C-alpha cells in the first residue's frame, strides 16, 4: 500500500504498542497532552508531611466536585486529565492500599508501593494492542514508615519521587514558582503554614487568576495525624489562602515585569 510521506510519519500513532522511528510512542505523548490539559494540581513536601492542592470544577449547575481524594488514612491523591481514568486509578489505589493492610497488616501502607501499582496499571496500557493509555497524570502523597513521600505518575507508567510539582494546565508556570521557593528553602525548612501558602499560590499561578477559595481543595497528611481534605475557605486555611493570593499577585507582577524586560531586550538586540 502506498502512503504519502506525511501519512507514513503519522501512522505510528495508530497504536500504543508501536515506536516511531525516533523512539517515541506517540499515543503516550498524546495521553500526556490530555493530562496536561486538565485542571492544575500541586503537590509539596514540608517538614512534617505532605500537601496536595487542586482546583475543582465549579459552576452554578454543578454539585460540588472533588479534586483531592483520600486513598487510605495516610495517603491522598489528585489527578489531572480525564476524570474517569483518574477515578479508576484512585479506586484501584484504595483497593490496593486496603489489600496491603489485609496481607501485611500495615498500619501505614507504603506510598511508593501504591504509586508503583498505579503506574503499573498505566504501563500495562502501553504494552498491549487494543488498550489505550490512560489520559491522566496522578500525584500520590502520604506519610509512611519512611516519612513523607510525594510521587508523580504519568501515562507512560513512570513513578518519580518529587519534592514539589504541578500537573495539569500550565504546570510549567507553577513549577517555576515552586523552583524559586525550593531554591531558598528545602522541604525540611518549610512549615505547614508556608507549605499551604505556596501550594495554593502555585495553583493560582498555573490558573493565572485568583480563583475563589471554595474552588481550591487542600489535602494534607502529617506524620501524626491522618489525611485531611478541606476547601481553602475552611477556617484553618482561609487566612493562608489570602496570603497565597498576595504571593500570587506579587509573582504575577514580577513575571510581567521580567517578560517586558525580555521583550525590550529582544527589541534592543534586533
Amino acid at each position, binding site marked *: 500500500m502506498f502512503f504519502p510521506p506525511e501519512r507514513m510519519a503519522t501512522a505510528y500513532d495508530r497504536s500504543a504498542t508501536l515506536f516511531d522511528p525516533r523512539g517515541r510512542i506517540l499515543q503516550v505523548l498524546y495521553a500526556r497532552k490530555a493530562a496536561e490539559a486538565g485542571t492544575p494540581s500541586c503537590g509539596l513536601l514540608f517538614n512534617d508531611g505532605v500537601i496536595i492542592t487542586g482546583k475543582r470544577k465549579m459552576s452554578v449547575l454543578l454539585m460540588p466536585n472533588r479534586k483531592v481524594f483520600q*486513598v487510605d488514612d495516610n495517603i491522598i491523591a489528585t489527578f489531572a486529565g480525564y476524570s474517569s481514568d483518574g477515578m479508576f486509578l484512585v479506586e484501584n489505589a*484504595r*483497593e490496593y492500599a*486496603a*489489600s496491603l*493492610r*489485609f496481607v501485611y*497488616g500495615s498500619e501505614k501502607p507504603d506510598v511508593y508501593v501504591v504509586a508503583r501499582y498505579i503506574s503499573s496499571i498505566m504501563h500495562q496500557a502501553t504494552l498491549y494492542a487494543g488498550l489505550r493509555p490512560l489520559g491522566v497524570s496522578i500525584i500520590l502523597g502520604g506519610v509512611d514508615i519512611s516519612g513523607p513521600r510525594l510521587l508523580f505518575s504519568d501515562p507512560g507508567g513512570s513513578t518519580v519521587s518529587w519534592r514539589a510539582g504541578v500537573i495539569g494546565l500550565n504546570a510549567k508556570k507553577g513549577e517555576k514558582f515552586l523552583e524559586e521557593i525550593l531554591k531558598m528553602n528545602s522541604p525540611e525548612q518549610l512549615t505547614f503554614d508556608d507549605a499551604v501558602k505556596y501550594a495554593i499560590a502555585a495553583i493560582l499561578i498555573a490558573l493565572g487568576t485568583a480563583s475563589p477559595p471554595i474552588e481550591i481543595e487542600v489535602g494534607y497528611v502529617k506524620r501524626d495525624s491522618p489525611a485531611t481534605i478541606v476547601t481553602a475557605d475552611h477556617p484553618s486555611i482561609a487566612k493562608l489562602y489570602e496570603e497565597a493570593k498576595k504571593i500570587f499577585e506579587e509573582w504575577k507582577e514580577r513575571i510581567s515585569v521580567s517578560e517586558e524586560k525580555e521583550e525590550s531586550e529582544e527589541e534592543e538586540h534586533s
Partner: protein
Amino acid sequence: MAFDNEMKNKLIHGTTTVGLVFKEGVILGADRRASAGYLIASKRAVKIHKITNYIAMTISGAVADAQVLVRWLQTRAQTFKLNVERDPTVLELVNLLSNVMHSYFKRLIPFVNHFIVAGVDATGPHIVFLDHAGSMQEEKFIATGSGSPIALGVLEDGFRDDLTRDDAIKLVLTALRSAILRDVFSGDGVDLVIISREEGFQRLSPDEINKHIKLSYIETYT
C-alpha cells in the same frame, strides 16, 4: 448430625462476649482468656476489634478464622468509606460478613466463629449476632461463647430499654463476672468498648474499668 455437634463443641469452647444497646449507643464486653483445650493459651487476648470509628465487633471461636475475618472486614469498611464517602452502616457490614461466612459454610469449610457486630450509624444503635453459618439476628442484648448461657441469664434479668451509660457498664460487668466465675474457659479480666454517637469508638482503660468495678461493688475477678 455429627458435623453439627462437632461444630457446636468447637464454637462453645472459650470466651464470653456480651453486647447491649443502651441510651447513648452500644457497649461491648469480653473476657481476656484464650484457651486451647485445658491450657490457657493467653491471658491477654483481645476479643473486641475496631472496624470503623462507629462500629466494632467481638470474636469467639477459632482465633485464626476470626482474626482473618476482622482484618478483611476492616479493609472492606475502609474502601467502602472512601468510595461511598460515608461510613458503612452496621447492617451493611454484617451482610457483607454473612455472605462470606455463608458461602464457606456451604462449601463445608466454615469459619468457626460467632460474632457480635455492634455500632451506631445513621439509623441508630445496632447490635447484631452472626453465627458460623452466616445467619444474622439483630438483638437488644446478646452474648456469645462458652460463657454465654450464664451471661445471657444475667442480661435477661438486668436489661431495660433505658439503661444509662453507668448502668449499662455495670450490667455488662455483672454478666461477664458471672460467666467468668462459673465457666472454665472464660477469665483473666475484661475488656470494655463503648460506642456512642458523640464520641465514637472508645476502649475503656483498665483504670476506668476498675473504677466501675468498685462502683458496682464487685471486688474481684477470678
